[in-house]
């Protein structure tokens, strides 16, 4: 393999402020009863900015601002006019795409190739898609005049910071709700840049409010009486706590939680394409993907062939500077996440699975983990059951389609699955039997604003995206 010259994207397009306040009622304000924390670049551990941490009083202020905007402006506004604001936002996101992509890679550690080519284009696409729904809600299949719910409290994770914001805010605003959104504590910066975009679009004050902070801020938001709708994306454990805390209230709840997807390769699959799909399925975004294909199920007869090709392909992955346009694998998002990945992989070795990583030099500073596969994995191993949320793949085998279905479904999760085979009838047979909200056949990790996404079983409830995604924000 020849060496690539470094091809770093310039940081100069991003104008970082030393500190950021909370975005409440259309303005950046200092926290009243909160503190502050720092957001760092996980690739270098450099401090990027100081960010306000919202206390319960700040959350209350934000919910009140959202309620006022709902009652006085956004609720009464026609769908036609709401649509125009969302279209404006979509356009500004496109105009500022490079700035957003660079900032996302700086704050999150994901390769610029992904933030530039996947995250940000999808963000704009989501606003475009839902903008068009704002004045057509009576045609969405929920009755002639579906009503919004009020203030939506939204808590999002750190793996796709701006994309998750778009998944939450676009349908909420299109349906006439106003929002208070809490980004993850390790990746708040693009949400704050989005707040500036709202200002630039002249979005009425209070329609979008951003409260930065950690778990306590999220809890205060979810439990606030003024919130009519709670939307959460994150871990299954936190999802369970939220489901308990909204029990007995009339708050509508949607949860998008963890996964442990099976990526199933049959002996008639084109091996090179399947290997590309396997790599994309688990190493995309450092494996920080709830629908990542973290359990590879290979039909026994092609196991050796697939493993050889997979290792050869993995040896070509480039790990390093997220801002380098040649980088395939960026930094792990935080020290805490790196710890979790290390702990689980050590358990994998201790339980007897065989570990392999390509030769790979890790940078001295920042949080890094080499792409890793485990072979000889059995269903009882923790690396086959627990969501690792890192670039770690567990490989299992199967003999018959029925066994593949059995093993794929043998998890409390049910978010996604992959099937690789040349046989169309087998794809449809498998797709019927896999208990997962998204099934990718001969592809993996594809997203589109028109397509509903969400899980069965303990992967949560409700769908985001598509016509079905409107339901979460309507009184139906």
């Amino acid at each position, binding site marked *: 393999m020849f060496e690539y010259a470094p091809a770093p994207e310039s940081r100069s397009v991003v104008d970082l402020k030393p500190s950021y306040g909370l975005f409440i009622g259309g303005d950046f304000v200092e926290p009243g009863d909160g503190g502050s924390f720092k957001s760092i670049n996980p690739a270098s551990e450099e401090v990027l900015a100081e960010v306000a941490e919202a206390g319960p009083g700040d959350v209350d202020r934000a919910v009140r601002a959202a309620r006022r905007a709902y009652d006085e402006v956004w609720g009464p506004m026609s769908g036609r006019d709401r649509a125009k604001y969302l279209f404006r936002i979509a356009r500004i996101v496109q105009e500022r795409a490079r700035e957003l992509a660079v900032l996302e890679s700086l704050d999150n550690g994901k390769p610029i190739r992904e933030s530039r080519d996947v995250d940000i284009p999808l963000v704009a696409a989501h606003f475009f898609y839902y903008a068009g729904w704002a004045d057509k809600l009576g045609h969405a299949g929920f009755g002639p005049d579906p009503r919004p719910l009020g203030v939506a409290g939204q808590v999002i994770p750190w793996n796709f910071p701006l994309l998750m914001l778009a998944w939450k805010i676009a349908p909420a605003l299109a349906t006439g709700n106003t929002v208070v959104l809490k980004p993850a504590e390790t990746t708040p910066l693009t949400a704050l840049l989005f707040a500036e975009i709202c200002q630039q679009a002249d979005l009425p004050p209070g329609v979008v409010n951003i409260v930065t902070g950690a778990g306590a801020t999220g809890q205060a938001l979810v439990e606030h009486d003024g919130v009519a709708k709670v939307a959460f994306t994150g871990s299954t454990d936190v999802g369970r706590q939220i489901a308990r805390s909204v029990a007995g209230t009339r708050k509508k709840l949607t949860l998008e939680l963890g996964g442990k997807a099976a990526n199933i390769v049959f002996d008639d699959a084109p091996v090179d394409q399947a290997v590309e799909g396997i790599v994309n399925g688990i190493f995309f975004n450092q494996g920080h993907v709830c629908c990542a294909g973290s359990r590879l199920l290979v039909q026994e007869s092609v196991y050796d062939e697939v493993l050889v090709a997979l290792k050869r392909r993995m040896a070509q992955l480039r790990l390093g500077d997220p801002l380098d346009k040649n980088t395939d694998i960026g930094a792990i998002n935080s020290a805490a996440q790196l710890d979790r990945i290390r702990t689980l992989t050590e358990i994998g070795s201790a339980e007897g699975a065989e570990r392999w990583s390509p030769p790979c030099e890790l940078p001295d500073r920042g949080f890094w983990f080499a792409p890793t596969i485990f072979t000889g994995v059995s269903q009882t191993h923790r690396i086959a059951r627990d969501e690792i949320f890192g670039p770690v793949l567990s490989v299992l085998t199967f003999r018959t389609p029925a066994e593949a279905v059995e093993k794929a479904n043998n998890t409390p999760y049910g978010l996604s699955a992959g099937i690789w085979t040349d046989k169309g009838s087998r794809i449809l047979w498998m797709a019927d039997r896999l208990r997962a909200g998204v*099934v990718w056949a001969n592809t993996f990790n*594809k997203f589109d604003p028109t*397509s*509903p996404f969400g899980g069965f079983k303990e992967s949560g409830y409700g769908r985001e995206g598509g016509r*079905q995604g409107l339901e979460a924000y309507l009184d139906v």
Partner: protein
Amino acid sequence: MSDGGGMVDGGGRPERVGVRKTYKLFIGGKFPRSESGRSYPVQNSNVALASRKDVRDAVLAARAAVKGWSGTTAYNRGQILYRVAEMLEGRRDQFVGLGVPAAEVDEAIDRWVWYAGWSDKITQVYGNANPVAGPYFNLSAPEPTGVVGVLAPAEPALLGLVSVVAPAIVTGNTVVVLVADTSPLPAITLSEVLATSDLPGGVVNLLTGRPTETGSWLAGHMDVNALDLTGVTDPEFGTELERAAAGNLKRVLRPPTGPVDWAADPGTGRMTAFLETKTVWHPKGI
């Protein structure tokens, strides 16, 4: 309904002694007594008082029936629901004899017919192809969520029960129903209708007894996928069950906020509450 007492009628013949019915549970298509051996009196009869073990047995039966029932064609499921309406029509007088108003029996029969017709339409109405921006084809379609635990409303005893059971099963779910303790006889009689309607055993399981006692076992059961709290009238009890349901993130249909007009058009909400959307992708190309 004379079950006599050995008296002599006007013609000098001894009056016939009637055969009294023992009321049991309905689990897996069979009519077992409660394993606990307990019962409670209703209208001079004894009705089985379901236990925690009965709840577990019913969930087991419901789980076992999911694969077959959800795999049945929509056409076939519709036929079976319509068959329930046919059988219920034939037993109309029996329900009236139990004190169910005739109009309510008629409405309950018609409700089976309404839901029977939905079996092969709900996928068309709630599923769709998505115009993806790329060389892919994908399709979103609703699928049953699995086993649904139901706390049935007490009133109207028959129509209320039918209105919560039919929408859950027409889409391919199976149910474990805790029948309200005040009026169990129409429910038990309905189970006789279901048992003779080609409905596979385990698709509907009806447990009489005290939902306040068994509800928490059902709500906390890790093999139940969804919970319908329509019959819950005590908000605190509802909250307790909803909390228990969070253990495995069951889909919860909360208790109604006000009186329900059971005779009104039911809409589709009770069906969609227990459906998942599955989206299947495939590349397009040559």
